[in-house]
């Protein structure tokens, strides 16, 4: 019963969030300076030409009418037609999703496999006073160097010295996995720098917080080995903020790593949206943002379920006495 209440509550609030996002993005797209007609027809188009185009795409209708039509179509699963490519937006997004998903998997795998151990190690090894400065500097750099700077740098370096890796000329995974990986590793690495830094930092802080808990002192007092204490008492208790962070990172990357995909010229969701914004392709931008919002909502529900499974005090059914 409580579970049912929880789920229905989550479903309602998710729907409300999506609705709010749809209104915002619909309005935002139309508030961008330079409309669709100007972008397509160029600066020398006559007023008649623009009016004709607007009528053809229904852009002359009142905005709330346009919104109503769009909302009705979207609820039916129809995201409309790209104004530029004349293809269904849903199908185009779906075709580009695997690229973005692969990038996400690679970057998140790196941040879990490297960031988490790095965070645990630096926390356990930390000495009072000194230490941690080098780690803080490195992770601070990793967090604060913008992706377009690092991305451009990597593109520049590897365009000259390939080292077996490729920039651009993307190949589908299904066609040639090795060649695909050669093109995906660099963008994934650029994304990882940020993801690993944040993960390591968050893990370190979480572990440091757990290390001073009395149950860890108690375990030390029982003579348990450091490895056993990390495995049995620290990892799980420090996991909540790390899982939350990784879940958010997944959602953020799945919504399209806009800059990195664009810089590396990958045919993913991110570069699709960047292009669409440049061309005022309203249907695509709206669908892309809605997709990103949807991914965020789903990931947040997942995070809540996971966190509840990790820490019984935070669960959906917490407070129930056995």
């Amino acid at each position, binding site marked *: 019963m409580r579970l049912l209440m929880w789920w229905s509550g989550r479903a309602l609030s998710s729907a409300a969030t999506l609705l709010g996002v749809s209104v915002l993005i619909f309005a935002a797209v139309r508030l961008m300076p330079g409309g669709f007609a100007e972008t397509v027809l160029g600066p020398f188009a006559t007023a008649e030409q623009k009016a004709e185009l607007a009528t053809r795409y229904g852009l002359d209708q009142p905005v709330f009418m346009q919104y109503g039509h769009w909302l009705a179509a979207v609820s039916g699963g129809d995201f409309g037609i790209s104004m530029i490519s004349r293809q269904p937006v849903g199908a185009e997004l779906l075709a580009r999703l695997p690229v973005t998903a692969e990038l996400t998997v690679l970057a998140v795998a790196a941040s879990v496999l490297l960031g988490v151990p790095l965070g645990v190690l630096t926390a356990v090894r*930390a*000495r*009072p006073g000194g230490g941690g400065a080098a780690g803080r500097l490195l992770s601070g750099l990793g967090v604060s160097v913008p992706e377009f700077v690092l991305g451009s740098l990597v593109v520049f370096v590897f365009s000259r010295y390939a080292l077996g890796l490729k920039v651009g000329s993307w190949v589908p995974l299904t066609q040639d996995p090795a060649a695909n990986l050669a093109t995906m590793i660099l963008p994934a690495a650029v994304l990882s720098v940020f993801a690993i830094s944040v993960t390591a930092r968050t893990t370190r802080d979480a572990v440091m917080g757990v290390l*001073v*808990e*009395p*149950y860890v*002192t*108690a*375990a*030390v*007092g*029982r*003579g*348990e*080995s450091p490895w056993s204490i990390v495995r*049995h*008492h620290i990892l*799980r*208790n420090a996991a909540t903020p790390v899982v939350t962070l990784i879940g958010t990172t997944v959602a953020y990357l799945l919504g399209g790593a806009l800059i990195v995909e664009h810089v590396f010229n990958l045919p993913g969701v991110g570069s699709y949206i960047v292009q669409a914004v440049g061309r005022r392709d309203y249907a695509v931008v709206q669908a892309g943002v809605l997709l990103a919002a949807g991914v965020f909502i789903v990931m947040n529900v997942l995070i809540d379920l996971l966190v509840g499974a*990790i*820490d*019984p*005090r935070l669960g959906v059914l917490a407070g129930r*006495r*056995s």
Partner: protein
Amino acid sequence: MSLLSVRNLVIDYARTRALDGADLEVAQGETVGLVGESGSGKSTLGSAVGRLLPRAARRAGGEVLVAGEPVFDLPDAKLRHLRRRHLGFVFQDPIGSLDPTMRVGNQLRLVLGRGGDVRFHLGRVKLDDPRVLRSYPHQLSGGMAQRVAIAMAMATSPELLVADEPTAALDSQVREEVSNVIFSLAADAGASILWLSHDLPAVARRCDRVAVMYGGRVVESGPAREVLGNPAHPYTAALAGAAPAAAAHGVRLEPVPGRPPVLTGPSPGCAFAPRCAFAEERCGHERPAPVRIREQDVLCHRAADLEPELSRRREVTA
């Protein structure tokens, strides 16, 4: 040879001095109450026994011997072995000292290993409800959680159990039961107890010996009845006078006047001198050396000439 021997131990935190040359002996099978105000160094001394001090703590001198082994000079593996073989700890916060994300049964099994009988060990602390095993710590009451913590500490049959105010966070009616469990389990196992407490009457009732801490030193130690009933150190006398149960009906409780010191380095003289009614000139700049008064070891310059005075005062208030 003593089971536990603390010799002139000095522990510093970043800027403050927590222990300023503490001495303590605990013999095999003996129960020792360690009493003193908050900030007197009780908890630091208790933690130092197993080298469980916070990372910021630093030993500036002295040593701790457990079964003859120098705790602070052991390599990590030997120290772990010593903790497993000889030591057990029970802390003040019962729920906090259990892992919040692990079921109680699993925590016990982790301590006991494969062959361990979880039910037996819970039975020893008078927890027979099998639902406890499936519970998480936050689903237990403080008293139940403390029993679980005691079961875990006693599971490996330690020779010395360090209990840092294990009942301070519990309801008063549960307090007695939990204390009973600790003392009877230790008595059955022949284990020693170092019992850190504020509760003088309970210490007087349960412990063989008492050590009184002030300003990071043990200022008086000896048989419990003697130390609390016939104190030889002015501080102990004041503390015993302030304990509720020591006062007869109608007699005003006399709190120890002044506040306990916060040391930043070695105390130049007797740390209690500023609050002491009997202090004289040398008390302020000369560190007292231990003297033997009756059955007590006392850190007080004037212990010998104060003996009749303190005895007389006891008779007046009694």
